[in-house]
């Protein structure tokens, strides 16, 4: 592992310029950099693996009732009426609420705010350049069901079984309407309209880059390579299905929601708007979360429904999704159709890139993050001087899509890295040499790409060399021969990647030295397996020089955590680490002040070392806990709170290699090797970063190999409704990973962090695809659509006219 010396020019610390020179921040940074990088085992694992986690469904309240949803079996149907009489008469049924009740009670749509809005996000607009229509997301619809699984009524009963039974007796009079589910098909003329407001379904149409210049380069370029891809739809498949327990307190007029999510603060803010109350009337608690991957970042209608139903019946209401409901109505991921073209000169230098990306958001627009993120990265890791992109989004009669682990980046990485392979094949270049020739050199950093994204730092060619070495690229021929001796076809795939991490810009940290000798840190991120309780404790412990075991991270209760962007887009360590560093510096400032008072000296005469405040040049010293205790009477609790806002994105990057064996008789693909180099910026806990990388790889490989939310176009019916129909990565179909962390310090934040949660996923789709195509290339196969199931591969082998050489 390399560890370049921290070299953060104060000018680069655009958000923290003033703090950049404070002696305390220098101190905490120095302390942190001395200690971080230790592979400390996760504090939370014992609790989580011994059944002591606090997941949403673990919470129960006295008098609690249970909700079940009545869901549409049709992809598109007008709701002519809902007859609840029979169901209401069933045992234990307390209430049944429909879309009409939602309107009658004046509830508002979920304010999804889907258009990414930081200064660094690509600006997506409606076709006329204005604000896009996103499709109001009421808790229940009154007019139409717009996808299979859409909740059209909620039944609340004394028991869960009674609620489910009664839901079955709710008679909904549907008038079936023409439907459209396919991404490309929805943008075709004559497709069924999901919303009357957007008859042609295309609600986003934005062009980026210099089209005239791009077209001119293409017109005169020696070579042009083109390809179309569909990065299909997947679902997050969290281990813990989503659940919510809502309670309304008549006396205080407050709503309380227990619901695991990607960040309780967003849930609180948006749900208060749905309910039409001030934000402080809603409290959201989100403790342990059994998987998120993006699917839980946004508000689900069921969260609002249990709160509202609780107010209506005066008792708490709990909803826990079944796995079937999760398949239908968890926010899904990806689903991008991309047409890309690359212009090259006679030497293989990339001249220009042109792309047309079409994102399927489902029945309503919850998030445009995938389209926006991808738009900024269409040129990938390569120096392509000119590029132009058309980015569109369509409504369809499918479940809404959301940012899914590495939102938008695996899609564009797939497009550029496949295109590079095709260019090499068509024009006779070596694929690796073609990449090298066009990689962005380290000397060009920070690099502004053709659509305006500024890559902060990175050593792309070094990543490439490094991964080639650890994967023993040069020894491939011997392994291939060995596989062939067993009748197997061996293939190898390579990909470079660069991605962006932006995320919600605001974060807040509160640090308090408690009387019981512990340090309490309140932070607004939300782990769902990322180990914040360990890595954040590690950061704070190092910075204020106390043992890690004494630091406790508090998160997930909006009565305690007032600000916080949650965990997404690789933002947590960067945002939380930065604001914790600032808060720690504040704490040390406050500590020096108090120590100066205590020892009756000037603040300038107090230094902080090894957890002690000392009077310089004397043996007078006091540790931070004793200081907190002794000055509590005079100064109050030793406690600081700090807000921070950072907009500047960082660009994690790296390279990946996959080796596969294909059984030509059955088409079965076995992944036999997987190596990565991931530049995560400064690495706080390599154990956790490696764990994140491994999980990220599995998630990307899952989409490449097995995962698909199949929808039958003729009927609009989702066909993947259980784990019998939806293949997942498992320990027995994954190889051991060979991963190394590159630490090229980012100049954009005081700790030099990039991100480590998504880099495993970003190149995985295309790396696996490249490997499988390489394995069967002798059959004339040059393209394969994911997922690379045995049937897909077998068909490709058998449909080719060629026999292996």
């Amino acid at each position, binding site marked *: 592992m390399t560890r370049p010396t921290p070299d953060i020019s104060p000018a680069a610390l655009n958000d923290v310029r003033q703090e950049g020179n404070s002696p305390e921040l220098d101190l905490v940074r120095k302390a942190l950099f001395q200690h971080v990088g230790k592979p400390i085992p996760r504090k939370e694992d014992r609790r989580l693996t011994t059944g002591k986690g606090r997941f949403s469904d673990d919470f129960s309240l006295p008098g609690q009732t249970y909700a079940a949803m*009545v*869901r549409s*079996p*049709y992809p598109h149907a007008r709701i002519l009426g809902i007859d609840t009489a029979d169901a209401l008469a069933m045992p234990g049924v307390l209430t049944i609420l429909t879309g009409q009740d939602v309107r009658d009670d004046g509830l508002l749509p979920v304010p999804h705010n889907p258009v990414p809005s930081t200064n660094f996000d690509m600006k997506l607009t409606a076709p006329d350049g204005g604000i896009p229509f996103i499709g109001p997301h009421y808790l229940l619809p009154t007019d139409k069901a717009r996808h*299979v699984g859409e909740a059209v009524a909620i039944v609340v009963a004394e028991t869960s079984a009674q609620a*489910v039974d009664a*839901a*079955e*007796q709710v008679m909904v009079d549907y008038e079936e309407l023409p439907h459209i589910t396919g991404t490309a098909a929805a943008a075709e003329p004559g497709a069924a309209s999901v919303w009357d407001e957007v008859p042609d379904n295309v609600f986003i149409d934005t062009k980026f880059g210099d089209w005239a210049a791009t077209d001119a380069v293409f017109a005169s370029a020696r070579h042009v390579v083109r390809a179309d891809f569909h990065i299909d739809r997947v679902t997050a498949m969290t281990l813990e299905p989503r659940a919510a327990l809502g309670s309304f307190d008549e006396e205080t007029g407050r709503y309380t929601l227990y619901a695991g999510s990607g960040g309780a603060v967003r849930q609180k803010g948006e749900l208060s708007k749905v309910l039409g109350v001030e934000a402080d009337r809603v409290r959201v608690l989100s403790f342990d979360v059994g998987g998120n991957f993006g699917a839980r970042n946004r508000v689900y209608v069921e969260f609002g429904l249990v709160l509202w139903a609780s107010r209506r019946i005066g008792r708490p209401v709990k909803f826990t999704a079944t796995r*079937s409901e999760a*398949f*239908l109505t968890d926010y899904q991921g990806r689903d991008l159709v991309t047409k890309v073209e690359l212009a090259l000169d006679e030497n293989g230098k990339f001249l220009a890139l042109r792309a047309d990306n079409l994102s399927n958001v489902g029945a309503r627009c919850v998030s445009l993050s995938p389209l926006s993120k991808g738009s900024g990265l269409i040129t990938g890791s390569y120096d392509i001087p000119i590029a132009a992109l058309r980015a569109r989004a369509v409504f369809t009669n499918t479940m809404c899509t959301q940012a899914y682990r590495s939102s938008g980046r695996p899609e564009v990485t797939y497009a550029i890295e496949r295109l590079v392979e095709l260019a090499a094949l068509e024009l006779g270049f070596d694929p690796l040499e073609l990449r090298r020739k066009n990689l962005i050199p380290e000397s060009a950093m920070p690099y502004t790409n053709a659509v305006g994204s500024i890559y902060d730092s990175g050593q792309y060619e070094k990543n490439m060399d490094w991964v080639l070495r650890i994967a023993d690229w040069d020894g491939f021929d011997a392994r291939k021969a060995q596989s062939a001796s067993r009748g197997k076809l061996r293939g190898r795939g390579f990909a470079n990647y660069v991605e962006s991490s932006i995320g919600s810009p605001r974060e807040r940290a509160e640090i308090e030295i408690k009387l019981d000798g512990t340090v309490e840190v309140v932070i607004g991120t939300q782990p769902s397996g990322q180990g914040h309780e360990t890595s954040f404790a590690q950061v704070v412990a190092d910075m204020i020089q106390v043992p890690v075991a004494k630091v406790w991270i508090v998160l997930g209760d909006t009565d305690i955590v007032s600000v916080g962007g949650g965990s997404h887009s690789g933002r947590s360590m960067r945002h939380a680490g930065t604001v914790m560093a600032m808060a720690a510096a504040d704490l040390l400032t406050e500590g020096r002040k108090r120590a100066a008072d205590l020892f009756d000296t000037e603040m300038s005469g107090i230094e902080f070392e090894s957890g002690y405040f000392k009077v310089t040049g004397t043996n007078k010293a006091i540790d931070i806990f004793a200081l907190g205790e002794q000055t509590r009477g005079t100064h109050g609790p030793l406690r600081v709170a700090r807000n921070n806002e950072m907009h500047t994105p960082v660009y994690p990057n790296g390279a990946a290699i996959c080796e596969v064996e294909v059984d030509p008789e059955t088409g079965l693909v076995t992944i036999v090797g997987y190596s990565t180099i991931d530049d995560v910026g400064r690495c706080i806990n390599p154990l956790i970063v490696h764990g994140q990388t491994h999980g990220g790889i599995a998630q990307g490989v899952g989409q490449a190999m097995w995962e698909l939310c199949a929808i*039958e176009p*003729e*009927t609009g*019916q*989702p*066909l*993947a*409704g*259980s784990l*019998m*129909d939806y293949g997942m990565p498992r320990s027995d179909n994954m190889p051991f990973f060979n991963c190394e962390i590159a630490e090229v310090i980012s100049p954009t934040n005081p700790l030099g962090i990039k991100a480590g949660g998504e880099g495993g996923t970003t190149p995985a789709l295309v790396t696996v695809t490249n490997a499988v195509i390489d394995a069967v290339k002798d059959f004339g196969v040059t393209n394969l659509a994911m997922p690379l199931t045995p049937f897909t591969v077998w068909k490709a082998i058998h449909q080719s006219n060629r026999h292996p050489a």
Partner: protein
Amino acid sequence: MEIKGEYLIDAPREKVWALINDPDVLAKCIPGCDDLQGTPEEGFSARVTTKIGPVKATFNGAVTLSNVNPPESYTISGEGKGGVAGFAKGGADVLLVDEGGAGQQTRLTYNVKAQVGGKLAQLGSRLIDSTAKKLAGEFFTNLVAQMEEPAPQENDADVSASQSPAGSGAAKRSTGRTVLLTGVAIVIVAALAAMMLGH
């Protein structure tokens, strides 16, 4: 989805035709059918409880007959709704061909086109073929048992036809794929009795 199949039945065509148009016979022969009303002219409505893989549901189905050409062919079309289990809709063309021969055999051919939705589609699609095959097998077994009874009995009869020996080989699977239906088909079939169902 589309399901095709045929059965060779050891009975004259007129007799087979009569049976598959008799609501009482249909009610007895359709597996899981606890109610079937109607006439060939007005159409049938039926309630059938069945289980397709993990999805167990009671379907309320209604079918109508068209293109009725006794004793040779008709078209069944209809829809079955199974609440949260989903729905099935579609139709089936049923054809009876007189094969003559010593045993006076009739070849019944069906061709079902159906759509399923909801949980049936998400969880049951993989299982519909095999379920339909099983239900069709039971239906034919029951039908043959009915033929062995001298005459359709009134409602007081114990519906035990399915317990009679499995047809002493009276219904034989024709060569080739047998098969059938799908969940929906089941509903429709039930309703129709013909055998097939629809999916």
